[in-house]
């Protein structure tokens, strides 16, 4: 057996040098943390497309991509990791091909499935962080529930039109989860005045890029149990570009997922007892 004297190869020093000299990253130690971390990105759409290459570029050791959707021409104004030659291809495979060329040091694993109650635990298991880049309340509840049960911190974001939202859930297994913020799921019938929404590519792109910043900060230890404050950040692209950060509630003791009396357990989820479909309805929630 050979002893690993240096934690990074010369090629890695060269590749990551410009980020390692940023004091906040912690130099070699921070780079090794990035290399040893595994990040799962659920959704290779408008949010995942900018988040993925920055995670790969930064040298995350393993990146998982969950997406069973295929590339469509109508995606390409905002899902710029894909391209016109990949129309019809699985988004996770399209993304993997780009990331492999960008940084061959990263192990990219694809999951060409629709995330659901029966496969989520198997997929999430072993990852340190999950980025929720999905587009329905159903998956947002599911991702948070599974992450809480596995002790994983989630970077969760969304966007529509010219706006976006970003938060970090279940930080250190002490921060709030999605259900702490939204104990009651939205009623599909109540959103009747909201139209199907469009989106400006770089606006959702900016929010996806913010997710990569948050993931890197989590991995290199910028957030600590002492300094972490639950937050929700809102981005507006028009008429001025602004970010507003709201101070949010902490973990709720009455939360049925992460609180004192937990009913959203792994067993309950995997048995199909928690009916995510019924619970969130099937309407398009994009606007409200």
């Amino acid at each position, binding site marked *: 057996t050979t002893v690993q004297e240096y934690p990074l190869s010369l090629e890695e020093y060269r590749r990551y040098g410009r980020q390692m000299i940023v004091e906040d990253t912690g130099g070699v130690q921070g780079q090794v943390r990035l290399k040893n971390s595994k990040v799962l990105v659920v*959704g290779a*759409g*408008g*949010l*995942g497309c900018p988040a993925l290459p920055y995670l790969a570029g930064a040298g995350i050791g393993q990146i998982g991509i969950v997406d069973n959707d295929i590339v469509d021409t109508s995606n390409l104004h905002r899902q710029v990791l894909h391209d016109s030659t990949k129309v019809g291809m699985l988004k996770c495979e399209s993304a993997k091909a780009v990331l492999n060329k960008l940084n061959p040091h990263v192990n990219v694993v694809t999951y060409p499935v629709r995330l659901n109650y029966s496969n989520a635990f198997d997929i999430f298991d072993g990852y340190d962080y999950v980025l*929720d*880049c*999905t*587009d*329905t*309340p159903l998956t*947002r509840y599911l991702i948070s529930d599974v992450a809480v049960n596995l002790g994983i911190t989630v970077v969760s*974001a*969304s*966007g*529509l*039109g010219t*706006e*976006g*939202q970003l938060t970090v859930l279940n930080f250190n297994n002490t921060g709030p989860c999605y259900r702490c*913020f*939204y*104990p*009651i*799921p*939205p*009623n599909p019938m*109540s*959103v*009747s*005045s*909201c139209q199907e*929404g469009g*989106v400006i590519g770089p606006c*959702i792109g900016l929010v996806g890029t913010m997710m990569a910043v948050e993931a890197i900060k989590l991995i290199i230890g910028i957030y600590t149990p002492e300094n972490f404050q639950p937050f*929700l950040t*809102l981005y*507006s692209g028009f008429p001025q570009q602004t970010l*507003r*950060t*709201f*101070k*949010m*509630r902490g973990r709720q003791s009455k939360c049925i997922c992460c609180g004192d009396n937990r009913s959203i357990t792994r067993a309950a989820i995997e048995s199909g007892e928690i009916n995510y479909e019924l619970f969130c309805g099937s309407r398009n*929630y*994009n*606007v*409200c």
Partner: protein
Amino acid sequence: MIKVRVEFLGGLDVVFSKQRVHDLTIDAEELSMQGLIDYIVQNLITNKNDVDVFLEDDNIRPGIITLINDTDWELEGEMEYEVCDGDVISFTSTLHGG
């Protein structure tokens, strides 16, 4: 008279005349959040059929985050909070697109 700024974000402005920021002067000595919400429903929602985009069972509709001076209202007493002159009260719909 209590002056308060009310904001409707995340697309919620669609039921408030597409106006995101409303500066209100309310003729009252005291005003709870409950009172402010009643005022909003009575005075700011253009089409009464849209009330259920904002309220459900007399409470703020699930999926809407309510903020008092940029802080989650859960930390400030929710419906019991006494609105102060100069407060900024924000309501934001949760976006789901990705």
